[in-house]
């Protein structure tokens, strides 16, 4: 026997057991070899694997383990030493690697585990973010809804639309089952169901306002959850198992006055409406916070929208009222204007109509006066004249007064001679005064300007009226008229506190006082004097006639002239003084008086209007001839005198521009002369102007003059001014037919 190097296994090979071990080892090796393959395959597949080194180690470990088991297969039977050597090597290696791996794994496995934890953490985070996103999205939705709601609510100013829209939109946004609005009644003691979402016409449920739950809602500015069983929430048909949650919120009803406070009105409003919102029943929905916030926002918006609607209603109503008033005022104004126009037309027509017959009466009565009358007839005619004059004055007064009251009367301003006005008044009043044996005196102050600017006619009318009254109401005694310039101290009269005249450089105040010694006026009658148509009761006035308009018109005129008029009297029987002040302008420079009187010194050469004008005068009467010559010489003419027709024809030449001939002397045919002159000068421009001087202008004389081709007639006696105007007319127009 040889000694073999084989190794005998410890135990004798048992067949069955051996077989099983043999197979297990085989499969283990297989598994061990396939695991790293799988590992490599999957790791290669995955992108991320941080521990490659570990993998290699692990792979080595497993491979070696597998190798060991594989080699183990050969050791079941007799095996050579080599196999044993290989087996041992493999086992050694395996031991080394596996220890190393075990050591490595101590580090690595916690890491691997923590990855897992992180993964879990991230997953949680992701879930949380998801949740939050969902929440935000919901809120955004809500916000959008509320904006849309607000927009809907505020887009209309109609109360009903606002409320209806609110309910509809809220219902839609929050998916409500029912939404209702309770408004306070007029008495303020109850809430009445005004609007609901589902029911079209809410029947008038009312609820007393002082329920505790309602008070709770009203006292909080937030939406409050209330029990579904309280009266305000009981508006759904019953029969549901689980009524949804109910929320109520107050809606402040604001008034216009609330907006005058700077801050948003908080508890100053007393009136609230109640909005009740119900979630659908049988759903597990709950009121979320954001939904409650939405409800509160909407409630506020509704409040504002309602108040805007109320303001608008108010202003529309006010505007309608104003328009009505405007229309009414316009109508009234037009009616007034029509009335005034009608009155003016009436007055004008009546005035004209009245004046025409008046004129006829006055004219014919005056003419009648000129004829031969018996004394009784004369008396009658005089009475007719006086009455018609009075009537004429009355008509004028009435028309003037109505125009004065209109304000349509304007002063005719002009420069006039103030002294002349007073003298004229004096002349007019003197006859009546002397009949009544009254003495009238006029006293003009030395500093009174001679000329003034104002309305001459109306000033005269005023003075005449005042003086006339003085004469009318005095039976005996004297009347004194004084006129002077009112000085500034006197202007502020204590008796006329409402009159504040302001003196200035180109105006002065004329003050006229008319004092009479007549019947006087009692103090209580004085205020009535200037009112229209009012007369005092004394017998004197009743007899003197007059309409009572005179003083009223005077007052108007004086007022127009920015002045003041008043009457003072100490009582009955003590006479009275009428005083008035008017504002007159001062003319800038005194114009050369074109007035017919008072050249103080005869001027040297006279107004030589016609210097060197050659004139021929034919008159048989020496005196008359001389007077005519004097006139013409005074006017600067170069006068040739002839006393007979033959002389006239001899002398007349084309140098003479005008020929004056007297035609009223019988026997001397002035007409012949005229004809002859016409024959002599064939050309018209060479012929002198022929004027007849005559003492009568009856029809026959006029016809004769015209027949013979005379250019004009002058009635003797001729005044200076008449001659002057005649000559200027003649020379300008070459014709004058009749100067009286």
């Amino acid at each position: 026997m040889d000694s073999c190097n084989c190794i005998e296994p410890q135990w004798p090979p048992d067949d069955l057991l051996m077989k099983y071990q043999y197979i297990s080892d085989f499969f283990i090796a297989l598994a061990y070899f396939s695991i790293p393959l799988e590992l490599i395959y999957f790791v290669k597949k995955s992108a991320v694997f941080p521990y490659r080194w570990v993998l290699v180690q692990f792979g080595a470990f497993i491979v070696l383990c597998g190798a060991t088991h594989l080699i183990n297969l050969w050791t079941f039977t007799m095996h050579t030493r080599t196999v044993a050597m290989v087996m041992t090597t493999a086992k050694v290696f395996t031991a080394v690697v596996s220890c190393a791996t075990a050591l490595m794994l101590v580090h690595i496995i916690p890491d691997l585990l923590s990855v897992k934890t992180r993964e879990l953490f991230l997953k949680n985070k992701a879930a949380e973010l998801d949740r939050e996103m969902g929440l935000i999205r919901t809120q955004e939705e809500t916000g959008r809804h509320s904006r849309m709601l607000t927009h809907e609510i505020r887009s209309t100013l109609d109360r009903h639309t606002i409320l209806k829209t609110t309910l509809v939109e809220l219902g839609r946004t929050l998916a409500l089952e029912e939404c209702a609005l309770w408004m306070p009644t007029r008495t303020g003691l109850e809430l009445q169901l005004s609007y609901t979402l589902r029911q079209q016409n809410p029947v008038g449920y009312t609820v007393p306002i002082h329920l505790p739950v309602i008070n709770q809602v009203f006292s909080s500015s937030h939406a409050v959850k209330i029990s579904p069983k309280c009266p305000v929430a009981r508006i759904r048909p019953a029969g549901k198992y689980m009524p949804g949650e109910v929320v109520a919120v107050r809606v402040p009803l604001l008034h216009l006055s609330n907006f005058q406070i700077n801050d948003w009105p908080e508890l100053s409003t007393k009136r609230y409406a109640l909005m009740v919102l119900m979630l659908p029943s049988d759903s597990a929905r709950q009121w979320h916070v954001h939904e409650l916030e939405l409800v509160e926002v909407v409630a506020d918006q509704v409040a504002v929208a309602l108040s805007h609607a109320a303001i608008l209603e108010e202003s529309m109503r006010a505007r309608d009222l104003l328009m009505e008033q405007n229309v009414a005022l316009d109508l009234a104004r037009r009616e007034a204007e029509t009335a005034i126009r009608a009155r003016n037309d009436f007055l004008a027509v009546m005035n004209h109509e009245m004046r025409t017959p008046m004129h006829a009466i006055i004219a014919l009565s005056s003419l009648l006066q000129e004829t031969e009358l018996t004394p009784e007839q004369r008396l009658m005619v005089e009475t007719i004249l006086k009455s018609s004059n009075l009537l004429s004055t009355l008509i004028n007064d009435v028309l003037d007064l109505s125009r004065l009251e209109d304000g349509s009367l304007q002063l005719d301003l002009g420069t006039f001679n103030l002294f002349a006005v007073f003298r004229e008044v004096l002349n007019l009043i003197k006859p009546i005064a002397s009949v009544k044996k009254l003495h009238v005196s006029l006293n003009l102050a030395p500093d009174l300007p001679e000329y003034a600017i104002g309305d001459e006619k109306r000033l005269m009318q005023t003075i005449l009226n005042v003086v006339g009254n003085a004469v009318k109401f005095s039976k005996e005694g004297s009347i004194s008229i004084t006129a002077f310039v009112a000085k500034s101290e006197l202007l502020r009269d204590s008796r006329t506190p409402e009159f504040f005249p302001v003196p200035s450089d180109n105006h002065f105040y004329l003050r006229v006082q008319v004092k009479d010694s007549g019947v006087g006026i009692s103090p209580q009658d004085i205020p009535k004097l200037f009112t229209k148509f009012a007369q005092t009761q004394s017998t004197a006035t009743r007899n003197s006639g007059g309409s009572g308009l005179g003083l009223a018109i005077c007052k108007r005129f004086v007022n127009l002239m920015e002045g003041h008029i008043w009457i003072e009297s100490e009582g009955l029987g003590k006479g009275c003084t009428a005083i008035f002040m008017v504002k007159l302008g001062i003319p800038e420079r005194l114009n050369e008086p074109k007035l017919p009187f008072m050249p103080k010194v005869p001027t040297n050469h006279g107004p030589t209007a016609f210097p060197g004008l050659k004139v021929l005068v034919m008159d048989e009467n020496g005196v008359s001839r001389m007077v005519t010559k004097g006139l013409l010489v005074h006017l600067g003419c170069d006068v040739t005198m002839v006393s007979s027709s033959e002389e006239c024809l001899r002398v007349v030449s084309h140098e003479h521009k005008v020929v004056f001939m007297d035609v009223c002397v019988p026997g001397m045919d002035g007409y012949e002369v005229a004809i002859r002159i016409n024959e002599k000068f064939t050309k018209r421009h060479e012929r002198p102007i022929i004027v007849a001087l005559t003492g009568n202008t009856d029809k026959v004389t006029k016809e004769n003059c015209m027949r013979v081709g005379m250019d004009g007639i002058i009635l003797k006696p001729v005044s200076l001014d008449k001659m002057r105007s005649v000559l200027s007319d003649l020379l300008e127009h070459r014709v004058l037919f009749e100067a009286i």
Partner: protein
Amino acid sequence: MDVVNQLQRQFIDYSASLHREGFLDDQFTQLQKLQDDNSPDFVVEVASLFFEDCEKLINNMARALEQQQGVDFKQVDASVHQLKGSSSSIGAMRVKDVCIAFRSFCEAQNREGCLRCLQQVTHEYSLLKNKLQTLFRLQQQILAAGGSIPVVE
């Protein structure tokens, strides 16, 4: 100066009285206005001419009316007409008024009436002559005293 003022006032009063009593009218005033430096004695001249004329005419009329055979009323009328013209030219109002009445008697050929009027005319004429002469004397006195003749309107 006092003398002048006094004389002037006298003159004014006298003029006014003449006007008031109807001896003179506006025409006389017109004549006074025609008096200026060129013709300082215009009024006096006219008045003298008037007086001459008047006398002449009155004599004519007297002679004509004295005719017993038959009064030539036409001639009388012509004279009266002249007189009327002259008197109205100078402003002798009263004389003129008498002339008017005179003329109507002439037309009526009423000798008695004419004679009566002639008497009146003569009377008026002499009155006027006296008055005017007084007036002119006053004027001369004023001028002699160095004053100016005031104009009376």
